[in-house]
């Protein structure tokens, strides 16, 4: 994934959106590395959320919301990598939340599926689902097209180039930390230390 500016409709969620809501466990029989199952995971993204319009309309596989705005502790619960993958497969590009659960954040970076951006402000009170948003990753801002308000975000730091590249392995290859064909040997590869863990 790359692109410094992400424009589109915003989908608003509350606090503690857990991975069971992001991708309910009955769909964990799908294997993300199998292309048609990857698409299918996308069709179920966020279908476990209570009292919200469907992120992906039933009978379709893509969302009209590239941006998600949420509260605290987004992605808590299970370590299932299916969670960021489902949102990414559906066409979600970024989440802007007050904080993230550790494993979810790391899975976003490792897979390169989704930019997990942190906001110091409670933006769930500043957006409603359907607002047009403009996320500028270089400037570190999210703008609400309806109200005109612009909000400063926390920098993604070292996680940004990894997601830009398409995830941990793609980044490691792109930057020459591991070669395209060889079995990677990370022992001497200090630069990988720069990648944000969690």
């Amino acid at each position, binding site marked *: 994934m790359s692109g410094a500016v992400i424009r589109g409709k915003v989908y608003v969620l509350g606090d*503690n959106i*857990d991975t*069971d*809501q992001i991708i*309910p*466990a*009955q769909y*964990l*029989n*799908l*294997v*993300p*590395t*199998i292309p048609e199952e990857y698409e299918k995971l996308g069709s179920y993204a966020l279908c*476990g*959320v*209570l009292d919200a319009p469907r992120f992906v309309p039933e009978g379709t596989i893509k969302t009209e919301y590239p941006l998600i705005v949420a509260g*605290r*502790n987004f992605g*808590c*619960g*299970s*370590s*299932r*990598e*299916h969670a960021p993958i489902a949102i990414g497969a559906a066409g979600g590009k970024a989440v802007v939340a007050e*904080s993230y*659960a*550790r*494993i979810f954040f*790391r*899975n976003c970076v*490792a*897979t390169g599926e989704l930019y997990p951006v942190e906001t110091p402000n409670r933006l769930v009170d500043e957006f409603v689902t359907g607002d047009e948003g403009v996320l500028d990753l270089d400037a570190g801002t999210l703008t609400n097209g309806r109200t005109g308000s612009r909000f400063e975000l926390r920098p993604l730091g070292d996680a940004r180039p990894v997601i830009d590249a398409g*995830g*941990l*392995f793609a980044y490691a290859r792109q930057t020459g930390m591991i070669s395209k*064909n060889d*079995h*990677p*040997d*990370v*022992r001497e590869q200090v630069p*990988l*230390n720069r*990648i944000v*863990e*969690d």
Partner: protein
Amino acid sequence: MQTMTEKILARASGKRSVSPGENVWANVDVLMTHDVCGPGTIGIFKREFGANAKVWNREKVVIIPDHYIFTSDDKCHRNVDILRQFVKEQDLPHYYDVGTERYKGVCHIALPEAGHTRPGEVLFGTDSHTCTAGAFNEFATGIGNTDAAFILGTGKLLVKVPPTMRFVFEGEFPPWVLAKDVILHIIGDIGVDGATYKAMEFAGEAVERLTMEERMTLCNMVIEGGGKNGIIEADETTFAYLRDRTTVPFNPVAPDPGASYVTTKVYDARTIEPTVAQPHSPDRRATARDLRDVRLTRAYIGSCTGGKLTDFVNAAQVMRGRKVAVDTFLVPATTEISQAIRTERLGGETLLSIFENAGCTISLDASCAACLGGPKDTFGRINGHEVCISTTNRNFPGRMGAKEGQVYLASPYTVAASAVTGRITDPREVLGDLEGAGS
């Protein structure tokens, strides 16, 4: 001056010492995966390292199918086939195949049963409840498929050293209070993100008195507080458990007297009561007594959190000679526990007979079952507007199946007592011991 977690990560990364916030490459002692995340992990491993690549160390990879085993869902069976094929290609010795005598069940309980949890080691697993193994004085945490694939190829992972929160329980826990009550109490205090990015260390006389299974319950749910890992010092209880389970030498760690903690909370163990987490969050704490008006339609005993042998022994203590008033589903975590339920006796009666006579619905097919909902035909799954009290670990919307369901989390004593009365019940009420409980 280091905490246990810092010492383990220093050792694993070949350093004399590490500090919280430092990123280190940790050498991995055990990588565990299962049927839900294993196929995706294997897919990434092959894509990134090549179709013919070999895992970094076949002795250090443990594969335990446990999630979706007893279902007619074809994809679930296909996923176990993917594991089986990989194990064959890689000639992996530590595989616990479905339909064989080696099958075990829930990975977090199977790991220690099979001797894969050892003090001082680093364990990663593609499951957030991998933190359970911190009870054995090791660094154990959950990771995603991509990180797991990276480990399969390299044997290493970049980890940030977490700061440690210390929880000390002085004195003794009261009768009818279990580790589940303690961890629900703590999560109620710190919230579901109170320990995010942090290690949770448990200590004090009351913790030292806990059995290994109870210590596992304590560490199991640190992830519900957002914690990266839970950890407890090793002692004779630890060594006694490991003695018959592993011959691999290990090297425990203890905290330095001057180790630094981000917070230290000291509790009087005697003040902990039977505790419940209300829908839909593990930090919505109440005492069982305060919820006595909540009517139930179902009770559930099982999972890595509450499906161990002591959990069933505790439930049987309450249910013996009594009848359940609501549908009560029981499923042991592992096959070893299934067997013990058939043979262990309480007052001359087997646990199985106690549960059958009480009117419980029992599956002896050990697995994760309905703890996380799963395929529609999963044993005990919530498929409608059920109000369930459960010994499991999460009560998020839809966690046990239908999102219309409501799940209350509690200890095996409290779940059993509530099953008997049909409403949320402090076990001391059923056992006539509520007087003196400070009510």
